[in-house]
Structure formats: C-alpha cells, structure tokens
C-alpha cells in the first residue's frame, strides 16, 4: 500500500514507532498533489518547501526524543477561509487576493502546536457562500469520482483533496452544510461540531451564529483525532464554550446496543433520489444489526428550514462583509481611475445643471466603497449581501429577519422534542449525489434547496456528521447524515466508527489515474 492510501491513524502509529519519517509522509502527499491537482483543482495555494521544512523540524524533534504534538508530522490541508499568519488567505475571493493575515486562527495555532504539517490552502465557494465550490473567484474544483461533477461546497477543496489522497486530513467550515455536504458528495467523512465547540477566532466570518470549523478525513477515527486537536475553549472567541474536550479517539467503541435512532419522516419524500434513499435505508439496517433501534420521528418545521437559513445567514453576512471596503486591507479599486471617472460625472452634471443629481452624487469615499465592492465580490456574495441588507432594513425586518429568528426557535424545539425520544437522528445528507458542473449556477434557489437536510443542524447549533454509505449506479458517493444533541460528538463518532467497522464504503478510492473530464472512450471503461 502506498503511503497516501493509509489513514491518518495508521500513518501516525508508524510515525510514532519510528518506521516512517514525517518528511517521507509529506513527500508522498506532495507528489500526489503534483500529479493530480492539475485536474482536481482542490488547492489554491501549496508551499511545498515550507511543508517539508516543517516536516524536517518534526523529524528532528522525534529523533532527539523530544515530545511531539498529537498530529506528529501528519499533513493537513486547510480551507482558505482560515487565517494562517503570513500566508495567503483569500476566501477564494478577489476581495482578499494577496491578503496575508497578521495572525493565525486559533485552530491553525492548535494544528501547529500539534505538529501538523500544513500542506496548503484549499479552494472553496467565495466567502463560504455556496454548495458546489463553483463560486470560487479563482478556479473550479472537480469531484475526484467524476471530474465533470461538482465536489460540493463550500469546503469542496478540503473534501476533494482527502478523497483524492492528496492529504490524509483537512479542515473545513460548515455554516449550512459546507463540511458535511462536500464530504457526502466526495465519499469522505466530515463533521460539524456543536456551535461553540471549536473556536471561530481567525475563521473569516460568514454567519456568526451558524459558522463552525470541522474536520474532514477518510474515517471517523481520523476525524476524531483531528477534532481532539481543534476543539476547546478559546478566550479570544466570545462564543466559544468552556467545556472539557472528551478524548474522542478513546470513545469510539461505546456500544451501539439499544441506541435509539430516529429517521425524519419529512426527509423521505418525493424530493429524495431513489438511489440515495435506498443507500440510507440500507445504512439504517446496518446500524440496526449493530444493536440500534430505529423509529420514525417528526421534525415538523423541516419544510421551513431553507427559508429560515437563507434569511438569517445572508443577514449576518451583510453585517460581517461590511468590513470589506478597500480601506484597511484587501482589494481596492483603481483609485486614480475612479476619481477621474467621478470628476467627469461631476462636470457633466454641472453642465446640464442637474442640481438634484449633483447633490446625490457619490462622495469620493462612497464611490471607493461602491466600486471596490462591485469589483471585489462575485455574484453569489453580492446576492446574499443584498438579500441580507433587505431582510434587515426598516419596514422588512419584522417580516423577514425577526420572523426567521422565531422559526429558528421552532426548529430548535423540534430537535429538543426529537432528542427526548431518540439518541441520534439519521437520514440523507443531500437529495441527490453530485450534480454536473454548471447545472445549478443559473438557479440560485435550486442550489439553496440542495441544503435542505443540513441547514437545520446549524440553526439548532447541534453537531452532525456525514459518513460514506454507498454509491449510485454511476459510481457517485452517497453520504449518511447523523445528528446528535449538543456536545454529543462522541456519540456521533462512535456510531460512525462502528458503522465503518461493519462496512467498507469509506475505503473505496476514485480511479483518478484513469479519469479525465469529458474525455474520449479510452477512459470510459473505468467510469461508473
């Protein structure tokens, strides 16, 4: 088996035993990136030299028998929404092209302290807004299982790089499903922790009451390892919760006997693809064979979840993205051209004597904001800022934003009632498997509706995990969604881990060496 085929847990055992060096491991993954990322496009930025230097340093520590961090030399890819001091952090936006943060996100500090080798920054939907990574201002990321299909989003690069064996671990962010959904579409394991479990300091904010950083990996065991490093109280994040972090990797074998699992009847309707439904039902049978008891439950306000989310998230985003004004950092419009254009407009208006228009004319600073933001943001970001601004505006605030906050409480209460009856909720992550690139770009509402199973988790602030549970006839991955009460990540990881002991979906690999996008017949035999 090649090094890149091993799980993070397996690699770590061999690193700790001195059988392998971090340099050898890092080199193996860097070679994979070099060979494959030209076609997959998972990474926005890779600094091979820096990664090898980190790996060498960790190797030195090991040889000198100095203590080594929990991730001891494992390569980790980081979604480009997290600040890494001195390194490019773009959020896949022209607005932050060239931006190098003056500080590390707390999770990045924790990764460094744990001796992870930071191997690169991954592609995403711009400012985490999207479900396909097609909203990146820089490049598309392709699904390693079929290069004509999306990897999902917004953490598409983070999911694709793990699926393609370019990194054993990656870190993404999830606001409405952005870790779990790409994990499902790419056939990897992705977890969104309870809100407040992982620090948001240094996570570029999209929606502050919904965002969470989460691990992606090949297995639940690997995700547990990474979560142990990421999780924990951070005084720099006022929404961080001061609760001890359980040793997730040691709690994976908690027996599933008598675990009560609920299936949401509202999630199994006409909108759910037949093949996805079949895989989920089969996965539930596996859980039952492990001792769990499954029943039907109701989350009566499910049908309102997407509307609720797509009012709250854009409202919070309109506030969070107000900081991008071209003044302190990030993109600024060509000021000289802007001033010249403004001056020309002024003269034209003076000539026509249109006093009203002259009075209304932008000041230079306002014009700076207007042009900077028009040029720096992509269409989806603009769409959400406008939606949010509108929903918060006087006269509409009650009907839209406040209404959505009230429905949010109803959704949360649905979960509270459900968890009084069951210990876990199981169901699909997405209504279909990965769709083709370009299929939904002109229909934002259709794109939003793809999130229907995952947004509730963020609205309620509870944890959720996506676990590979099958493939469509076309060879596209299907993910099983498990949700648990707040701070019950151990329960989720144990169920996922034991599911993975009883199945082998998570061990399958895309045949990347043979695939090429829309290519001639030579490659077709290997597809689906």
């Amino acid at each position: 088996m090649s090094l890149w085929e091993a799980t993070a847990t397996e690699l770590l055992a061999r690193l700790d035993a001195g059988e392998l060096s971090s340099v050898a491991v890092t080199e193996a993954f860097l070679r994979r990136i070099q060979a494959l990322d030209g076609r997959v496009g998972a990474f926005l930025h890779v600094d091979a030299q820096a990664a090898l230097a980190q790996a060498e340093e960790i190797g030195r520590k090991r040889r000198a028998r100095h203590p080594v961090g929990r991730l001891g030399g494992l390569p980790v890819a980081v979604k480009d929404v997290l600040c890494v001091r001195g390194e490019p952090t773009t959020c896949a936006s022209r607005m932050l092209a060239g931006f190098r943060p003056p500080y590390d996100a707390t999770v990045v500090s924790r990764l460094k302290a744990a001796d992870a080798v930071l191997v690169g920054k991954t592609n995403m939907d711009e400012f985490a807004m999207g479900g396909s990574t097609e909203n990146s201002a820089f490049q598309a990321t392709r699904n390693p299982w079929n290069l004509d299909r999306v990897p999902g989003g917004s953490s598409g690069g983070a999911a694709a790089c793990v699926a393609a064996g370019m990194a054993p671990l990656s870190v993404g962010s999830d606001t409405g499903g952005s870790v779990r959904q790409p994990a499902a579409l790419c056939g990897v394991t992705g977890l969104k922790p309870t809100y407040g479990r992982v620090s948001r300091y240094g996570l570029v904010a999209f929606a502050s009451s919904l965002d969470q950083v989460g691990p992606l990996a090949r297995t639940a065991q690997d995700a547990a390892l990474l979560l142990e490093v990421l999780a924990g109280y951070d005084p720099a994040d006022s929404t961080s919760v001061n609760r001890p972090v359980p040793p997730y990797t040691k709690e994976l074998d908690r027996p599933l006997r008598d675990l009560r699992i609920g299936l949401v009847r509202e999630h199994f309707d006409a909108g759910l693809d037949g093949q996805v439904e079949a895989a989920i039902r089969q996965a539930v049978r596996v859980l039952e064979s492990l001792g769990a008891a499954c029943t039907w439950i109701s989350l009566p306000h499910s049908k309102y979840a997407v509307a609720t989310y797509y009012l709250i998230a854009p409202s919070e985003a309109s506030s969070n993205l107000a900081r991008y004004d071209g003044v302190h950092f990030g993109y600024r419009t060509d000021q000289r051209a802007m001033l010249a254009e403004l001056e020309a407009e002024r003269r034209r208006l003076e000539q026509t004597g249109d006093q009203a228009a002259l009075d209304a004319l932008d000041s230079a600073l306002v014009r700076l904001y207007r042009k900077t933001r028009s040029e720096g943001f992509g269409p989806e970001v603009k769409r959400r800022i406008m939606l949010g601004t509108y929903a918060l505006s006087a006269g509409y605030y009650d009907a839209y934003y406040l209404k959505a906050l009230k429905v949010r409480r109803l959704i949360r209460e649905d979960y509270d009632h459900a968890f009084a009856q069951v210990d876990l909720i199981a169901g699909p992550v997405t209504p279909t498997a990965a769709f083709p690139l370009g299929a939904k770009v002109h229909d934002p509402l259709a794109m939003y509706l793809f999130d229907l199973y995952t947004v509730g988790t963020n609205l309620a602030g509870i944890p959720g995990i996506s676990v590979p549970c099958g493939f469509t006839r076309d060879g596209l991955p299907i993910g099983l969604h498990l949700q648990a009460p707040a701070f019950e990540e151990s329960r989720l990881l144990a169920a996922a881990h034991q599911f993975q002991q009883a199945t082998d979906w998570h061990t399958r690999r895309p045949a990347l060496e043979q695939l090429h996008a829309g290519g001639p017949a030579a490659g077709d035999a290997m597809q689906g």
Partner: protein
Amino acid sequence: MTVQLGAILQYMDLLAELNTDQVEPLAHPLEITNVFRADEVRPSLARQAALANAPHHDEECYLVPAVLGEA
C-alpha cells in the same frame, strides 16, 4: 440578478404560513450573555503589521480619498 432575487424573496413568503406571535426569536444557539474579559490593557497589533495589507498608507495611517470638502 433582479429576477433571481425576486424568486428567492418570493420563496421566503413560506414563513408567513406560520403563526409565531407567541414565539421568542432565537438569534443564537448558545444563549450565553455578558462574556467579558478582565478590563486589562494588553498588547495589540503592531502598527507595521496593521498596515501591511493596506492598499494605500503613509507609514502611519490608512489613506483614503478626502472626505471633507472637494473630492
């Protein structure tokens, strides 16, 4: 863009089906309040670091087009 925004807003009308008169808004999943730190002076970002990503600066401040008076 206008058409898309219109369609999205129309979809939001779905929420009007619900009677939420007796429901308190939930702005935040963790209903914690008053998360303060001790009122102590601590080091903050050094000026050079704060200016490092500035599109336009004079080593001391960020520069923008004049706000008062003529453009």
